[in-house]
């Protein structure tokens, strides 16, 4: 059943968020620490085990894949609800601070990605994968 997939996904996310919130309280900050990350690891581990036992059939999988496919549209909706007017209204100092943080961070990507050996680029996307996005 498709809903089993959606429910499993939602459960992983809720548990992950809970861990993130508890961790936030534990370290004394008013923020969720890594909730999405914990939820992802939960989903990967749980579905992997269920699949191996044959408890995660194709229809159930569809419930997860549907939301994965909706990711880009959701991000576009998110972009259209950003507070761009205020960002631009912040003037040159805010812009330079934001841009500077991006530039300095981006420059470090090749350096840090080298830790633990060089990685191979992902293969080019197939036509099928492109159509999904």
């Amino acid at each position, binding site marked *: 059943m498709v809903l089993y997939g959606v429910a499993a996904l939602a459960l992983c996310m809720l548990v992950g968020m809970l861990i993130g919130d508890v961790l936030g309280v534990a370290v004394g900050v008013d923020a969720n620490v890594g909730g999405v990350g914990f939820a992802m690891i939960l989903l*990967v581990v749980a579905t992997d085990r269920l699949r191996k036992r044959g408890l995660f059939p194709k229809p159930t999988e569809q419930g997860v894949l549907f939301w994965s496919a909706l*990711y880009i549209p959701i991000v576009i909706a998110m972009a259209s*609800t950003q507070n761009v007017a205020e960002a631009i209204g912040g003037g040159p100092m*805010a812009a330079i601070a934001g841009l*500077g*943080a991006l530039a300095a*961070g*981006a420059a470090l990507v090749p350096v840090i*990605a080298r830790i633990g050996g060089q990685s191979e680029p992902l293969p080019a996307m197939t036509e099928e994968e492109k159509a999904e996005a």
Partner: protein
Amino acid sequence: MDIIADVLERNGLLFAFVVVGALMMISGWLSKTLTRGRLQGSAIAIMLGLVLAYFGGINTGGEAGLADIAIFSGLGLMGGAMLRDFAIVATAYGVDLQEIKKAGAAGVVALIAGIVVSFVVGAAVAAAFGYTDPESMATIGAGAATYIVGPVTGTAIGASSEVIALSVAAGLIKAVVVMVCTPLIAPFIGLNNPKSAMAYGGLMGTTSGVAGGLAATDKRLVPYGAMTATFYTGLGCLLGPSVFYFALVGLFG
């Protein structure tokens, strides 16, 4: 007209699907005709979304871009934190845990380096513009991390509301430029594999920026970038009002 607007408002989420669908169609067409596919349709759609958000904000004076216009309010639900994080978690389905373990050390280093670098750059820019007291420097530095870390830090250490507003603006600018620039800079920084995506997520930290930027670059990288970015804001809120602020007080106080 009133009847149409009423129906669209009552079914906001459904209208949001239609609006985003139309945006994606236009963007796909622009991508093919104007850039011959060089710039992905999703990258163009995100930019169009940001432009629309700008005009929405200008027209209403609100904080939620296009979603402040009543008939587009469904975009707020569709693009809000709940569904966004839900979809991000869904992209992790089928991810190889080995890849994450392999990149774990790089991810942790990236997180710490990302927060420190943003703080330092932000604080230096603040000082260059004449905000030389430790409270203002720490708050704007924290804003250069993310637009959540800025106000959390500013409130905790008692920065002025003007400085807090500037820190939010710095964080917003970062989120927006990360969304727009990621696909453009990706080839130059080797952003084409899970490990560099994890490093990128940790270095940038802005969940919305990384989520949008990687979506426009290569959707398969999203779960890796999001995995590290999700720790950033929490860690920033922890370090901003404490270690970072005290370091600035020690240096300039």
